């Protein structure tokens, strides 16, 4: 049972085969022609940058989304899932980054949630707990039992519960989405052991990660996705880290970006952080100067969004020195001339049922500012097309919505403007307009900090790049750094740091 099952000699049964999968959301193609297969006992890693389409592909397999084209075969049979329950019945278990567990219920309750064994119409707790105990035993997990409350378990233990859940439904395919993201170093080893046990049971494991070390530790094969397309599938033993990185990022900088700031354009410091930190960040040293666009790179969970929220005052810094002011809340941030274009504009940036005008004026109204820039001029400045003020924002395209968010902050004439994924979900035309506008603002003396998961954008726009990892600054890179250099710093598993 303990043998690793890696590179099994016998020709194993193909459990899952996805062929030519394509998917569009609202006319935007996010996946095209993806092929992916896995056989019994294989760990197949799926890698790619943020936004490459990994999650969408997995959600299609999970029955959350339906593919527009392509075929899913499980155990040789063509299947289509209209609902996640159907995928589950077909033997697909997904372990998301955010666990689907009820914290106030016991481990056994969670494992059998929605399919509790019954006896004479009542839930048969004894059977449930016995079955859970048996599965825990098989996984060699003795640190907790079926009756423990999920909320009392560590993250790693909760992950085990998810795996037990998968085993209890006789899953043949287990998909793990960034399973190590929330784990401590020593817990990762335990996870490896669990995954090898799954392999030895003949389960196909699809392992999504951007951490290449894990990929090489675990995977038999690796499939690389990029911008929703299938770059290739390779044997893990036959590829080097460098080659894999190249497959992940090696695209041409085909997009147009406005010219960078000249030497003389960069002015006095607008904001200086010295050893700043809070619950999620530590030892941040950073200077933002007038006229400069500073890019922030980092993997999900590296603290990128926390950084801009801390500077803005939404999740303030609790230590360190910030000049001229360390805002303790949003209003102090705004008073200091700081604006934040949030990552999720629908949830955090806009009041969707209100008009363009109401959205554009939200900040000045909130702070009771006397200066009321003419909304019409603002909308022209952000190139809203058509520049109608009375349209409810929910009816606008992603690009136009983002322009409205920008207009909202321009009313402040901000000294510092923070952008979290400024062009996510924005079409190409609006993207260029937003890029131009960002550069225009910088040229006008605004200090800009921009987070982007899209490396070409980050590199194309930034005058310099700061890379975050685990809530700290992992390194600084000059303008025009290569994608490989950024990725190396962001994903460095000890080696490149």
């Amino acid at each position, binding site marked *: 049972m303990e043998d690793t099952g890696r590179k099994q000699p016998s020709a194993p049964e193909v459990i899952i085969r996805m062929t030519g999968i394509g998917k569009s959301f609202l006319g935007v193609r996010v996946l095209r022609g993806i092929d992916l297969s896995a056989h019994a006992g294989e760990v197949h890693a799926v890698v790619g940058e943020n936004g490459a389409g990994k999650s969408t592909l997995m959600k299609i397999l999970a029955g959350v989304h339906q593919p527009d084209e392509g075929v899913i075969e499980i155990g040789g049979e063509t299947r289509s899932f209209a609902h996640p329950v159907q995928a589950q019945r077909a033997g697909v278990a997904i372990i998301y980054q955010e666990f689907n567990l009820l914290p106030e219920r016991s481990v056994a309750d969670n494992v059998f949630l929605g399919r509790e064994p019954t006896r004479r119409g009542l839930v048969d707790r004894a059977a449930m707990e016995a079955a859970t105990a048996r599965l825990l035993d098989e996984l060699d997990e003795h640190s907790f039992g079926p009756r423990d409350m999920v909320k009392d378990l560590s993250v790693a233990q909760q992950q085990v519960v998810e795996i037990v859940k998968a085993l209890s439904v006789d899953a043949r395919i287990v998909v793990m989405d960034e399973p190590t993201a929330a784990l401590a170093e020593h817990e990762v080893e335990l996870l490896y052991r669990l995954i090898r046990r799954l392999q030895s049971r003949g389960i196909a494991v699809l392992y999504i990660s951007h951490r290449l070390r894990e990929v090489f530790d675990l995977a038999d094969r690796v499939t690389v996705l990029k911008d929703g397309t299938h770059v290739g599938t390779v044997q893990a033993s036959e590829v080097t880290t460098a080659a894999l990185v190249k497959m992940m990022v090696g695209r041409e900088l085909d997009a147009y970006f406005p010219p960078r700031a000249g030497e003389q354009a960069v002015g006095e410091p607008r904001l200086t952080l010295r050893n700043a930190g809070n619950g999620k960040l530590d030892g941040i040293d950073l200077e933002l100067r007038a006229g400069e666009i500073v890019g922030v790179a980092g993997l999900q969970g590296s603290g990128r969004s926390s950084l801009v929220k801390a500077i803005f005052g939404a999740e303030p810094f609790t230590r360190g020195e910030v000049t001229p002011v360390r805002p303790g809340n949003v*209003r102090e941030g705004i008073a200091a001339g700081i604006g934040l274009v949030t990552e999720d504009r629908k949830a955090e940036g806009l*009041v969707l049922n*209100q008009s363009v005008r109401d959205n554009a004026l939200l900040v000045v109204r909130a702070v009771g500012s006397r200066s009321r820039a003419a909304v019409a001029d603002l909308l022209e400045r952000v190139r809203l097309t058509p520049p109608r003020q009375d349209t409810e924002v929910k009816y606008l395209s992603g690009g136009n919505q983002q322009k409205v968010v920008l207009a909202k902050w321009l009313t402040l004439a901000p000294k510092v403007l923070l952008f979290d994924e400024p062009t996510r979900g924005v079409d190409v035309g609006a993207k260029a307009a937003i890029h131009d506008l960002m550069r225009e603002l910088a040229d006008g003396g605004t200090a800009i900090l921009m987070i982007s998961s899209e490396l070409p954008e980050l590199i194309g726009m930034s005058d310099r790049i700061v890379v975050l990892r685990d809530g700290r600054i992992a390194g600084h890179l000059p303008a025009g750094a290569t994608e490989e250099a950024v990725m190396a710093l962001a994903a460095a598993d000890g080696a490149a740091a």
Partner: protein
Amino acid sequence: MKRAIPIFLVLAGLLVAIAAANPFFLEPAGFLAFLKRVAPLAILAAGQYFVIVSGEFDLSVGSLVTVEVVVAARLIDGDESMTWPVLALLIVIGLLVGLVNGLVTTKLRVPSFITTLGAMLILSGAVFLWTGGAPRGALSQGFRVFGREGVWAVLILLVVVTTAVLLMRADFGRTLVAVGDNEKAARLSGVRVDRARVLAFMISGLSAAIAGILLGGFAGVSAQVGQSLEFQAITAVVLGGVVLGGGRGHVVAAIAGAFTLEALFTLLNLHGISGALEYAVQGVIIIAAVAAGGLRLPALRLSPSKV
């Protein structure tokens, strides 16, 4: 404002139907009497609108109206010279109850449904305790004139409506709607979310005070004067197309909702349908109005056929 069109069509239809059944309605005196009757509910609906559009509820206004009337009668006790001081006190009580509702909801994070349900029970209990079930004292002539003289009632109604409209056009109103629409985005834009909501509750409390002043003169002193007014006010607001949960709807439409509800009661009355049915009718209306809010087209189609 587009959402508000159906309610005006329904209202117009009802008014025509009333006029057909009772031509007196078209004479100035008849119409004035109608306005006088509508005024308290319309004012309550205006106040309730501010709370609902911010994403909350105020269930305490009915009991608050009773408190206002009972307190007024007891303190004035027929003494004309007490009229103005007591009026001032009533306004303060209304604002204070709103302030407490608002602070409990925002600072203690008690859902407003529970906060104001609690306030409703506390206020009813207080009235009962204080009066023993039978209010004592009497209102002064100077007090009763507001509710009794149609001109006064209409004047006060006009002032309330105008103030409400102006408030909703001002920064306060626009940010309040933003809070109801997307609290998080509003907060991240620098809106003082809690302050906006507390003010909305205070406006609702104030509207209950004004409605109480009118009802004291109009309906007289009793421990039942405000009974179920909170539900009528909420029904009116919902009928006006204002979305429960906040962020959508117009204050004028909410007031039109109050007119529609009162017109419907009047019409039922004219056709000899028992007042006892009012509750059932109201129940049907509130459910239908919320359902229609989900499917807008049927609401539009329904309205002309009602005529």
